[in-house]
């Protein structure tokens, strides 16, 4: 019980830190876009590489809050009748759903790690201002690791609910 609570606090704390980085990325996106608009429309001088950098910052905005969004139940789910099932059965199916989500994130971590290593080796970078891609790919890996941790916690919780229902 104590370990579980500690794990949730750990996930929330790191999720919050990742969110702060995403806030920064979002602010920077806004600033760069506004400078680009003002430069292009008023002085005929668009900010060089603004689109590239704004696109890469969007990677941080999309990826870093994955875990905290899951913790707050922010990812959309469709209810195809699960709520009408008996509690134990519902917990079982939710457990299966959580296990599948865990499997997906394991695959994502493997896929993005390989992709990041490959990008680092080949030195792939953005077209105009040559910002390397690999740090952003690694940022996705790190955010997937935290999301995986959160999903494992949810899986443990659903297994526990099922066991408690068995005892009852």
């Amino acid at each position, binding site marked *: 019980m104590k370990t579980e609570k500690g794990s949730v606090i750990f996930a929330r704390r790191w999720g919050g830190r990742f969110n702060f980085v995403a806030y920064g990325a979002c602010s920077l996106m*806004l600033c760069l876009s506004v400078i680009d608009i003002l430069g292009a429309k008023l002085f005929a001088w668009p900010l060089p590489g603004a689109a590239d950098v704004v*696109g890469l910052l969007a990677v941080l905005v*999309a990826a870093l*809050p994955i875990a905290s969004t899951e913790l*707050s139940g922010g990812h*959309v*789910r469709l209810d*195809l009748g699960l709520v009408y099932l008996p509690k134990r059965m519902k917990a079982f199916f939710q457990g299966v759903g959580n296990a*599948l989500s865990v499997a997906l994130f394991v695959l994502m971590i493997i896929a*993005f790690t390989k992709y990041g290593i490959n990008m680092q080796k080949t030195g792939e970078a953005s077209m105009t201002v040559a910002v390397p891609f690999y740090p952003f790919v690694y940022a996705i890996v790190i955010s997937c690791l935290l999301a995986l941790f959160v999903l494992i916690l949810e899986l443990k919780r659903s297994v526990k609910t099922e066991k408690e229902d068995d005892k009852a």
Partner: protein
Amino acid sequence: MSMFNAGIAGIVLLILFFFVGMPVSFAFALAGVLGFFYVGGIEGGLSILAIETFSNFSSYGLTVIPMFVFMGSLTFAGGISAKLFDFGFTLFGRIRGGLALSTVAACAAFAAVCGSTAATAAAMGKVALPEMKRYKYGDSIATGCLAASGSLGILIPPSATLIVYAMLTEQSVGKLFIAGVLPGLLLAALFALAVILWCFYDPDIAPPGPATSIKQKLIAFAKVSDTLILFFVVMGGLFTGWFTPTQAGAAGAAGALIITLVRRKLTWRALLEAFEDTIKTSCMIMVLIAGALIFSRFLAVTGVPRVLSDWIGGLPLSPFTIMALIVLFHFVAGTVLDSFGLILLTVPVLYSTILKLGFDPIWYGIIIILVVEMGVISPPEGLNIWIVRGLAPDAPMQSIFKGMIPFCLAILVCAVLLMIFPQIVLFLPSFMSY
């Protein structure tokens, strides 16, 4: 197993993933990746997962999402909802059903800068419901008009659902936004008509309020003028091609930031809440799009959409009848499925059929989004019903459901009008040069 059967197996797997409660985005990604494992091996599947996700996350086109969401969050934090309602009240308050009409008008205006159905219903509900209660409005009309008008956020730009549709079909976000303006206004007018007719048949349900002077009207207008100007600058810039969609979103967010600062509504807490809302909503939508596109690519490889469009195209039915059946399907499915989920599920499968039948993809997008809008205000899944229920806990559920009926009919009438007169959707985008 043939490619086609693999595609069908992928769809079945996807529905099973939905059933076990996986988030929609994760379910799409996993079903797509497993499909690619089958079609191209494990290495190929992993490569597509990484390349497709990274290219979507870093696509400049998708950066429109955080910008517009931030604009909406800041507007929400700025407390514009009360001022919009006050302005509506000065215009319509003295007539029977005037507060409900004010709610419709204020929701349409709020949706134009916010883009979120839930935020529109919640923000407006806090202001409108106590007023309607004070003037002894019936529970059904008060809750019904609020939940329905809140749903205008799906159609009136900037709408997250329109962005999702644009990304799935590679259509211009700007054109879709502009295409949503007239149908959004038409729907708001039909909601207003529903209120007027309701009051005509049951005059006691919405008594008139006090009259207001011209001076009060002008003061109320002055308080919302900056937000209305912001909307016209953003949408006007988009319409004339002066802004790209991302630039329009950034200009809107910067404008909303300045307005909230000038109004002294921007505390640190409000700013952090706006950021929190922005990154979580953007993350949810961008992960959804990335997942849906992986699955969509898999379906395209298996040829399911092509076979389906050939089959539907070969049916002895007119294109209009087929379209009507598709709309009917979305109408029914929208009552039990989330709007995002439904669009992500059906668009990749049906899109090539729509093109083959010769329908305009922009028109189709607006029609489908309008129809799934009904899902937001119909039981059992209707998000706005539960938001309104939370704001009006004393109102019986039966009254709330009864209140939705005239507005659901208004959506149905709007869908029929748009099908008969596609020009309502396509008129404004026809002036756009890009």
